[in-house]
């Protein structure tokens, strides 16, 4: 039944212009960044190159792709629950012989399928360099994996925000607020003690600190636990909201 829910949501999203605009817009900007990085790198002498091409590309391309995901996930998630609450179509799913967990996992699967092409966009751009430059494929694979996990986290946050309100616009704003909080929370320590260099609790809560290690090519257990744990937490919160909806 998870597949039935996911299938409808994917189909419903693909017949609207939103995912295509996000995909095309993301590709235009990423290709510009890609060409810019390659152009700057080739213009430097060997002794001036402080970082490898792989590192330059992963930091710039994947870093920006994460920002695109941050915009895309709440926009795609808003219709999945909030939009259905508003137009009354959620009653169809709610009255069907299907559990709340399956409904939520179906929505999450649909969101993951819609966000995956966006997570693969940097990889498609880098494929142009295959055969022309020596790239660290392991690092690129780690960066792609990290970006995908971050996209899933954003999707879970987007779904949770979508479950909170019957106004899709408010759901998007809520998701942005949550994502921005998780983006800047690491700076709290820097404001308090600018000399601090170690990773504090607030730094650990920030998603960009964890993505950075993936971009360096390191897949660390603590980063995996953070991304998957937080994804699970927001899915659990969304599940609770949906279950409570039957009580409201």
């Amino acid at each position, binding site marked *: *039944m998870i597949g*039935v829910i996911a*299938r*409808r949501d994917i*189909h*419903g999203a693909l*017949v*609207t212009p939103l995912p295509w605009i996000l995909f095309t817009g993301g590709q235009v900007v990423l290709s510009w960044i890609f060409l810019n990085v390659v152009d700057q790198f080739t213009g430097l002498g060997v002794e001036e190159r402080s970082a490898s091409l792989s590192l330059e590309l992963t930091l710039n391309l994947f870093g920006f792709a994460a920002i695109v995901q941050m915009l895309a996930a709440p926009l795609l998630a808003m219709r999945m629950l909030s939009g259905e609450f508003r*137009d*009354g*179509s*959620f*009653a*169809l*799913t*709610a*009255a*069907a*012989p*299907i*559990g709340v967990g399956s409904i939520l996992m179906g929505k999450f699967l649909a969101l993951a399928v819609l966000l995956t092409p966006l997570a693969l966009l940097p990889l498609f751009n880098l494929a142009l360099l295959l055969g022309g430059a020596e790239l660290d494929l392991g690092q690129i694979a780690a960066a792609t994996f990290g970006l995908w996990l971050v996209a899933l986290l954003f999707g879970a946050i987007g779904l949770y925000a979508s479950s909170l309100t019957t106004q899709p616009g408010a759901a998007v704003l809520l998701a942005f607020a949550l994502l921005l909080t998780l983006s800047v929370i690491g700076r709290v320590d820097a404001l308090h003690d600018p000399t601090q260099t170690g990773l504090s609790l607030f730094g650990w809560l920030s998603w960009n600190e964890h993505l950075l290690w993936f971009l360096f090519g390191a897949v660390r257990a603590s980063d995996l636990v953070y991304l998957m744990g937080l994804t699970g937490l927001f899915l659990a919160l969304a599940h609770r909201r949906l279950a409570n909806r*039957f*009580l*409201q």
Partner: protein
Amino acid sequence: MDTLARVTSLSRRFGHYQALQGLALELRQGEVLGLLGPNGAGKTTCLRLLSGTLAPSAGRIEILGIDLARRPVAAKRHLGYLPERPPLFDELKVDEYLHHCARLRRIPTRARAAALTRAKGLCGLETVGRTLIAKLSKGYRQRLGLAQAILHEPRILILDEPTDGLDPVQIREVRTLIRDLARTSGIILSSHILSEVQAICDRVLVLHRGRMLFQDRFERTRPTQVWRVRLAPIMTRQALDQIHTLERLYCVEAAVALGEDRYRLLLTPPATSTDLARQALTAGLELRELTPEPHDLERVFFDLIGAGGMGSAR
């Protein structure tokens, strides 16, 4: 008859507002039960509770013996539900939507095409299969909502104002459809239109401010004992004689004058209209009209909710 749904002491509270209180009902196979009441009476809340889309504050709902609160997935397999607003996806085409509903209702792949054809045929949707739902008129949207509810041939059908937004021809078709569907299932519908409930339902349940005020079964087969007659006009002073003549007829238990030449008569069981006509003519009364008095649900309704008496109801 088999009991399809049994509701006991059902209550629902929204904060401080008591939307439904102590409702008890049973639905049997082949029965159409009408929930009647003014706006805010608790009809939609009751149907949402029965469909499993809202949890009760207290009470128990059993669908074919399955507790809806404890085993919602198993119970919902037997339910078809048309909410107040048909649950449609505007971006899909009619066939795509119905295929999705068939998958949601776990109709096997090989049976899906036949189920779709049947539901579309019953609801008059054959010509709009490839139309985008966003482009459908209100009547067609209502019909599509009904089609998704009957797609899996549920044992219990829950319809929230099923004829809302339909034109008179469509209303008649939907009423006929509901009576046809009732042969194999039990149907609960809500309406605030008295004549509709009277036309479709076997039993009526009047709700007001969340409480059940009245429950009655319409006897379709038993002939009515209350008749209206119109006699030839006569002088006013002779009207008293006329009513006395009517009262003296063997088959008449009581007579009430409604106008100059019109009377309402209560017949003595087992007398029929034939006996009345024969005896009236024998007594020398010139009978012009003889019509059965309709079941007076309207009077009962207004008496119960206190919104007017017999005068205003008529």
